[in-house]
């Protein structure tokens, strides 16, 4: 067991190191934006006085390392500074958006992940039968269509024609949980359709591979019940790859849904970052990038840990 703790500790450490490296890259990336930062922010209306004032405000005269340290030490305690464009503290701008994004991502994940794994398992079991082929075709079709197109289709059918769900996802602050779910039904469904195919096919492939292994054949010859073969022998060995693809899709649900946000007018992180980039709101860009990096690194770490726990060979490395 101490081995396991050490392994996980090592993973966590690597995760933190990655985050640190990302923070350096984010900082350098915003430094590399063409032109003098102060002039970029002010645009053509820049007068020398205004440029000087902004430079002083942002401490642009200081060495980059010092500025990095100031920014990073703020980030460590959750202080991202103030937005350049609106002057509001970044945490107050960011938190409601992050909440909205996580709510949508979680809802989509709660539908998509069990659905994809169940479909994947059943397809693997009933390989090459009608069920398998139909599921494959349907999910492939769903991931082949761009997500905004799926979104528009759903809006047309379920909002404009049937009137079951709202076309745009407005969530009023006073809405209860049920009303919120109703408001995001269509974007959540869109994301489910977009992500299920990938996860389902990976699950199917992983399980099929395991099912063709000699020890499964042995178990079958021994007369082990089907259910036990799947859940005791096959699934634990397929968990590693499945966890990885699930995590990849979860990360996508958090950082990659800008198009869905636009189609459903949902105030999430994607729109926030696009606005920040177009307004050259540097601290806001940095904060968004860090939040996205934390999501990616954190979720990947989770996948690693799940793989380790599920795989005795990784649990007890020699």
């Amino acid at each position, binding site marked *: 067991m101490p081995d396991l703790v050490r392994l996980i500790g090592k993973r966590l450490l690597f995760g933190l190191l990655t985050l640190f490296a990302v923070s350096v890259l984010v900082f350098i990336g915003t430094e590399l934006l063409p*032109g003098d930062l102060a002039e970029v922010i002010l645009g*053509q209306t820049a007068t020398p006085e205004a440029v000087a004032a902004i430079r002083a405000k942002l401490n642009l005269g200081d060495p980059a390392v010092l500025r990095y340290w100031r920014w990073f030490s703020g980030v460590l305690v959750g202080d991202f500074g103030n*937005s350049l*464009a609106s002057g509001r503290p970044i945490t107050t701008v960011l938190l409601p958006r992050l909440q909205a994004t996580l709510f949508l991502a979680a809802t989509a994940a709660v539908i998509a992940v069990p659905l994809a794994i169940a479909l994947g398992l059943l397809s693997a079991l009933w390989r090459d039968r009608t069920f398998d082929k139909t599921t494959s075709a349907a999910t492939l079709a769903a991931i082949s269509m761009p997500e905004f197109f799926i979104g528009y289709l759903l809006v047309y059918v379920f*909002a404009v024609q049937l009137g079951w769900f709202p*076309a745009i996802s*407005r969530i009023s602050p006073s809405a209860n949980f049920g009303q919120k779910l109703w408001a995001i039904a269509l974007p959540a469904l869109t994301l489910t359709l977009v992500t299920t195919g990938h996860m389902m096919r990976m699950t199917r492939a992983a399980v099929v591979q395991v099912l063709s292994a000699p020890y499964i054949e042995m178990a079958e010859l021994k007369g082990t019940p089907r259910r036990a073969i799947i859940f005791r022998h096959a699934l634990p060995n397929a968990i590693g790859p499945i966890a990885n693809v699930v995590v990849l899709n979860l990360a996508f649900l958090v950082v990659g849904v800008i198009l869905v946000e*636009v189609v459903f*007018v949902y105030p999430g992180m994607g729109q926030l970052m696009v606005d920040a980039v177009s307004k050259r709101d540097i601290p806001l860009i940095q904060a968004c990038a860090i939040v996205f990096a934390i999501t990616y690194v954190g979720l990947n770490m989770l996948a690693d840990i799940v793989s380790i726990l599920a795989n005795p060979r990784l649990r007890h490395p020699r």
Partner: protein
Amino acid sequence: MSRFDSYDRLLRQGALDRRGFGRLAAMLGAGASLSTLWPGMAGAQEEPKKGGDLAIGITGGATTDTLNPLPSTSSLHAATNFMWGNCLVEYGSDGSAVPELAESWEPSADAKTWKFNIRKGVTFHDGKELTAEDVVWSLNLHRGENTESGAAGYMTSVTDVKADGSHAVIITLDSGNADLPYLLTDYHLLIMPKDSELTAGIGTGPYKITEYDPGVRVFGELNENYFKPGRGNYATVELLAINDPAARTAALQTGQINVMERADPKTVELLSRAPGIAIHRAAGGGHYPLLMRCDTAPFDNVDFRLGLKYAADRADIVDKVLRGLGKVGNDHPIPSGDPFFAKNLEQRAYDPDKAKFHMKKAGYGGEAIPLSTSDAAFSGAVDTAVLYQQHAAKAGITIDVIREPSDGYWNDVWMKKPFSVSYWGGRPTADLMLTVAYKSDAAWNDTFWRRPDFDKILLEARAELDPAKRTAMYAELQGMIRDDGGALIPMFNDFVDAAVDTVKNFELSPQYGLAGMRAPERVWMEG
């Protein structure tokens, strides 16, 4: 390089297509109308109804927005500003300058010094009464080197703003300008209480902003003390930032919004057939020129320019590129609704024979003429160039359509290439439009056309207070651009909005879409 790019794009095409014109009679401010309703709606048949909730889906919202009116650029900003604030002068739906917070005004004989009498008994949302002090403070926010105001360009000509007693303001200009009241209708120039917080959204307007979520929604409740009779009719108004045209359309069709700013030209025909939906279409001043550099051969030859102008089938371009939602242009930038529009100037028609004649006279021998284009100029710019290529071919002119990269179009192509497709948003007055793009020394003289006689008449017309003389001068200027200038202007665009048909009194404005961005205060709900 990117900063100029984004700035130009913002000013030239992005945010708000503005245009305007004026009616001289009303410009001299004969005083507040005696109508029981607000002057602009004197012609309305019905009595306004009170109550109801209005939701408008509108473009141009961003997370980085604030309520500060100075840096406003987009439709959402302008509509928000007019929800909570007022200007000294309102741009009337008939193109006249309607007294707003100023109840009347009087220019000096040279149009350099103006006295504006401020309306009495108007209160801000915080209960404070409006005085000349507030007006002086508010207008001065837009002056000086470091102002971030979008109206700073006009306001540089203002040399002094001072109070004259408690309810009058004297504005002094560096040179005569008969259009000053029109310039004061600008949605940046809101009057706020002296020394107030710029981002507070406190003004004299019809709605008090009670909820503000940047890039998402603006929510206002009716200001019970609003000073305009018959205006501010809905109990609440909500602006929803919906940048995607398909999402706006769906939201309108499903009743999540009552009004949609900027209907999608591609689908407006279908939308107009949907039950319960009304399309509101207003002629605008935004136009789409093909720019020839008059300082560069072969475009330095007036016959060459005329030949190319006769080779465009304008009606065909309006039909196919704007889907009929626009008007043909006559190779000058003044729209047909403008009171200074030269009515007697003959509309230039598609005439391959005349084109051939002028091209021959210019010594053209059939060689390919490169035309630079990109949809960065406007959506449909490439189609425009290709259509024009077909029209010109019938006159024996070979146009070589060059698709330039969208990125950097305003830096590397506009005002650089000798022949290119471009876009101009309209300007509130004829004078501004001619000054910003056709005066010899204009920074954006994008045809490089320089005529000292044109400049001289332009300056005289600006300070001329006699409407008849002024009209004649502007007609002459338009003729000069049409027959000698370097812009081939095939079309002007329309503002197209849509609303459910219970929304009444959607007064169209020639200045902007969305009833001059004043729909929140103008409309009412059918009872």
